[in-house]
């Protein structure tokens, strides 16, 4: 690839997964209790997509990575301070709610608009990355809809690996049932890749990368325009946290032999 790829990574933010989440009804619809005070992280699957994008860009000269995010500006800014240290990217941000009860169609529409407005967008070499679902909304639909909006019909979901072959084709591994991967070969960009976890570890925090990113991240955040999510079509009847508490029988004094016998009987029963 002489021109390299333009890898556009779509990534929202979600509450740090360790936080306790409680749904509440707000004047704006369903949300989380104290949503704005929960520390946020980049959506985990989308993070994997970003790390994979950075890795691919590093190995395909001439490539660049643009991160497109739809999230409340204030929260996004904080997430960026951590993320910007990890891999190089340019940021395009839209200021909009990022809660789990937003509609994937609305989010896709905002993303599509933001992506189409990227001045030097290279459609012919576009690899559109994102998580295969978000850890908040969990719809598993945004990337497909976005792909359609951008007219991309080569789409892959649950991706764990992408390799550029010697001929410039893309070999892609998608998760399918039974702990297996479907292997596909695609002639080339443009494609949509909804990532599962991939195989790369989380990159370390590198202040130099951070400095480099901040040159574009800060201005992009300041430029981020409010975007409206219509939510017209979707009506929630209710959101509930399951009553998960069970009566746990705690066996402190059984011997290993007794426990083993009981477990085996239970498994076979």
């Amino acid at each position, binding site marked *: 690839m002489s021109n390299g790829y333009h890898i556009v990574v779509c990534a929202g933010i979600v509450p740090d997964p360790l936080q306790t989440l409680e749904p509440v009804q707000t004047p704006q619809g369903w949300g989380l209790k104290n949503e704005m005070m929960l520390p946020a992280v980049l959506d985990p699957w989308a993070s994997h997509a970003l790390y994979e994008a950075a890795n691919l860009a590093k190995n395909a000269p001439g490539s660049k990575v643009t991160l497109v995010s739809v999230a409340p500006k204030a929260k996004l800014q904080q997430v960026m301070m951590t993320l910007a240290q990890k891999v190089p990217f340019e940021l395009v941000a839209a200021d909009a709610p990022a809660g789990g009860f937003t509609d994937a169609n609305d989010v896709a529409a905002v993303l599509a608009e933001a992506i189409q407005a990227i001045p030097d967008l290279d459609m012919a070499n576009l690899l559109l990355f994102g998580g295969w679902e978000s850890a908040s909304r969990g719809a598993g639909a945004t990337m497909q809809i976005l792909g359609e909006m951008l007219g991309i019909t080569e789409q892959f979901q649950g991706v764990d690996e992408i390799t550029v072959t010697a001929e410039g084709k893309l070999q892609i591994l998608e998760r399918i049932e039974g702990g297996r991967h479907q292997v*596909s070969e695609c002639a080339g960009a443009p494609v949509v890749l909804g990532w599962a976890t991939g195989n790369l570890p989380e990159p370390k925090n590198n202040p130099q990368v951070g400095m480099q990113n901040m040159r574009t991240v800060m201005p992009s955040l300041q430029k981020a325009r409010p975007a409206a999510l219509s939510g017209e079509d979707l009506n929630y009847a209710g959101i509930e946290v399951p009553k998960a*508490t069970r009566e746990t029988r705690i066996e402190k004094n059984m011997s290993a032999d007794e*426990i083993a016998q009981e477990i085996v009987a*239970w498994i076979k029963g």
Partner: protein
Amino acid sequence: METILYLAHTESDGSLGKAALESLTAAKALAEQTGGTLVAGLVGEDVQAAANTIAGAGASKVLSVSGADFAQARYATDAAAAEALCKAAGATLVVAAGDSRWNRVLPGVGHRLGGRADLHITQVNGAGDISVTRWFYRQRMEGSFTRTQRPWLLGIDPGTQTPWQGDAGDTVVEAVTVETGDARTTVTGVKAPNTDEQTIRPDANVLFVAGAGWTKKQADGQTHVADAEKNILGFLQAAQASLGSSKSLVDLSSEGGEVLSFMTHLNQVGQTGATPRHPKGLSTCCHGEEPHVVGWRFINERRAVNLDANCGWAQGKADVLYVADAFEVMEKVNALLAE
């Protein structure tokens, strides 16, 4: 009145998979509750045999998109097929299995048709306003909702419905033609672990969850990773169990720490991992909280072996907690299973 399209693809042997039959249950329920018409739409290389197996399902007609192009699970052809079938059926509701093949295309197809698609549906309710239920925030809360937009495409989460059972018979299949254009993607194969390395078995009776404790220092101040591997693999083989793991244990493997050699991200449950459905789950050496626990939200019977009687992972979440050394217990369990 609603027209409900039951959308299914055939497996490589021409049959309908379990997930497809489960979603048929949901489609039929919707048709009955709404008083709507049920139409079947099948996609595959050759769908006649599949059409015959659902002869008793009560579909007013069976449409198909078939041919060599549709043997492969790929976006361009599958989306075109689904789009054509929805149009041909005049569908207002579309019900399909939420498997990897349909999940890949349903949202895009919904968009093409000016409709909406929702995946990971666990319940459908056709009484009154049609509503569906699915999980949000990684299985930490469940929401039910309605939509006004049509067609509405629903991907039904595998394992949430009883597979449809009914009489087979000769079925007339109406072929729908689809222009596929130049598909730029070819499916070249499937990569699966060797049978003896198989650690993920979606249909297993038991999910074995391994926690980070397996690779940590034990009472003697040493790690015993080789013993841990032997115990875990031994159990997976003997019980034909599926293996799940906490995130921390999986992460170690990508960071070069001392690890279980067979553990990959595919094994991860909870957080960014899977939330598999199995009748039974046995958790060992785990210590965690809510984000980990979601990993076994859909395990019916749960037991745990842990050294901490107050373990938050187990207390209130497992049916039985054995306070014991998992190394010792699992060795004995394996010995008993081998008998």
